[in-house]
């Protein structure tokens, strides 16, 4: 069941489904976000940055939580696939964190008059970027990949304390960053026409992550199992 070969084959079948549903929700989200949703009465059209910024910020935290859970499982049961999940997620997680920071900056300039402020939300999100980069650097610095995987499992797990800090920063501290506009319970702060594209983009980015992490994990499985018979047979099949 949990064999790398089984994973490789199942992941290969799942990727096209993730890819197609990602593209469909992305097109729908962009269309609703740019053409259908009305301008904001206070922020005009600048708020459309939210359709990139908020889903990117959600992903930055979601992917980190996936990595921390995978880290815990790796440390306890030493499962190869969860080790691979951590390192396969790190670069896409770092990318979304970077995207959230830059789009936040591009939104902050016209709305707050500053590209950057050392507010609790922004600072803790920057810390998250450093955590991702630290995990990538640590993994590539250690030659033995099993040892490297254990090291990043620990780092991913320890760093997860930053996630609630990011999430509650806008409530715990007096921040310039606004509080959440989307809540699971309670009254929404946004009209439905503005909320629909946001949710579509949120789903779209999650599906994208699903496709990309599986693609990268498959490549990592090939690399680690390069001397096994099934990988040799697979490569020989492709050489013909």
């Amino acid at each position: 069941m949990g064999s790398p070969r089984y994973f490789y084959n199942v992941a290969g079948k799942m990727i096209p489904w993730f890819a197609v549903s990602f593209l469909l929700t992305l097109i729908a989200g962009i269309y609703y976000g740019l053409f259908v949703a009305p301008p904001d009465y206070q922020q005009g059209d600048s708020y459309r940055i939210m359709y990139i910024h908020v889903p990117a910020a959600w992903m930055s935290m979601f992917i980190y939580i996936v990595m921390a859970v995978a880290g815990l499982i790796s440390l306890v049961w030493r499962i190869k696939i969860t080790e691979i999940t951590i390192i396969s997620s790190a670069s896409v997680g770092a990318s979304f964190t970077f995207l959230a920071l830059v789009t936040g900056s591009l939104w902050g300039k016209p709305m707050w008059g500053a590209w950057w402020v050392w507010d609790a939300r922004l600072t803790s999100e920057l810390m998250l970027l450093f955590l991702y980069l630290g995990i990538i650097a640590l993994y590539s610095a250690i030659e033995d990949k099993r040892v490297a995987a254990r090291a990043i499992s620990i780092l991913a797990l320890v760093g997860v304390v930053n996630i609630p800090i990011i999430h509650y920063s806008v409530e715990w501290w007096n921040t310039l960053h606004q509080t959440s506009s989307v809540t699971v319970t309670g009254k929404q702060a946004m009209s439905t026409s503005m909320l629909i594209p946001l949710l579509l983009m949120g789903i779209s980015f999650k599906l994208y992550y699903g496709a990309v992490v599986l693609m990268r994990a498959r490549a990592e499985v090939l690399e680690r199992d390069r001397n096994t018979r099934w990988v040799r047979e697979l490569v020989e099949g492709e050489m013909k």
Partner: protein
Amino acid sequence: MSEFLDMGGYAMYVWPSYGLAFVILVANWVSPLMQRRRILTDIARKLRRDKREQK
């Protein structure tokens, strides 16, 4: 159309956001594909070398 591109005067903030998102999405999609190709060619080269040595 030009009104749409102008984004109510916020074009210089809105479009770079969407542009960067596009670049990041494409880059993270292409990167594992290249990694996969690099690994496959690497393994194939090694297999051919092993076969020559056996002869």
